[in-house]
């Protein structure tokens, strides 16, 4: 579970630039990372930290995209 969180955290950081795509692996990664950390699984801490960073970046950049869409007259 810790390794899964690590992989999802990396995916979330990589895809954080691409609209909302990074949010999904970020959320799942944070949940798996926290569960793994409770069980002291391998890579749990790293997975949790990377997923939190990926999720935070994805949310910041997604909301920026939303603002761009509104400003661009898409709505």
């Amino acid at each position, binding site marked *: 579970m810790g390794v899964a969180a690590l992989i999802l955290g990396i995916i979330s950081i990589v895809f954080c630039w691409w609209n909302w795509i990074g949010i999904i692996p970020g959320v799942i990664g*944070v949940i798996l990372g*926290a569960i793994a950390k409770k069980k002291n699984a391998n890579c749990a801490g790293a997975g949790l930290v990377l997923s939190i960073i990926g*999720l935070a970046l994805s*949310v*910041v950049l997604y909301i920026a995209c*939303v603002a761009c869409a509104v*400003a661009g007259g898409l*709505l």
Partner: protein
Amino acid sequence: MYPYINIFGRTIGTYGILMVLGMFLVAILAIRHGKRVGLAFEDVIIVAAFAIGFALLGGWLMFIFVTFSISDIIAFIKAGDFSFLQGGIVFYGGLIGGMLSVYFSLKVIKRPFAVVEQCVVPYIPLGHAIGRVGCVMAGCCHGAPYDGPLALYYPNSVLGVDPHQGYFPTQLLEALLNIGICFCLIAYRKKARRSGDILFGYLALYSVVRFILEFFRGDAIRGIAGGLSTSQWISVGLFALVVARLLFFKFKKSADKESA
């Protein structure tokens, strides 16, 4: 105000930054209180992750359904135009999504709702207040045209409003009232007896605040039905839910007395 900042050549919305800062603040304060009541750091993180995921989904879905009618959405899909999916976030949709998320997070962490509630709920309005400062930065969710004291001007609003027109500072007023709600809930936390008391206390206070503030709002991207905005109808619904809960416990108490 300052809707965007440039970092490494990339334009980033200040609204998003402040929204994430608000989320982090709620999580940090919840972890801090969790230590006092025996709720593990990991449990708070799980609750927060579920809440963020569901809140974003709920806020986004509500924005789409408030902004477009079902017939508009069908017309967009038929035309192959999916630009309508690029929407904003409606706080009430986020709040309802966040409340639904608790069902799933409690299944995972296996802790009672009352413990999670007293750690998280009192700080949600504080995070919301920071989000409202983000609205001032972006120039969205503004008030009605107003030229009196404390009027706000948006020279580069994301909504493209008239830069020379002053607007009532509804976002700042809501931020201040949210901070007030936060302090009320922290004080009430010690007195709450039943599971759900703090959450319903928050819903009661916020629905009243939001219902009144909506009369001062001036942004056009919101649904209006029967003279009230969508958020006002949701406020009425949530307040009715709070009253129904109070009545339920009152009747239950009197029925218990009679049977005893």
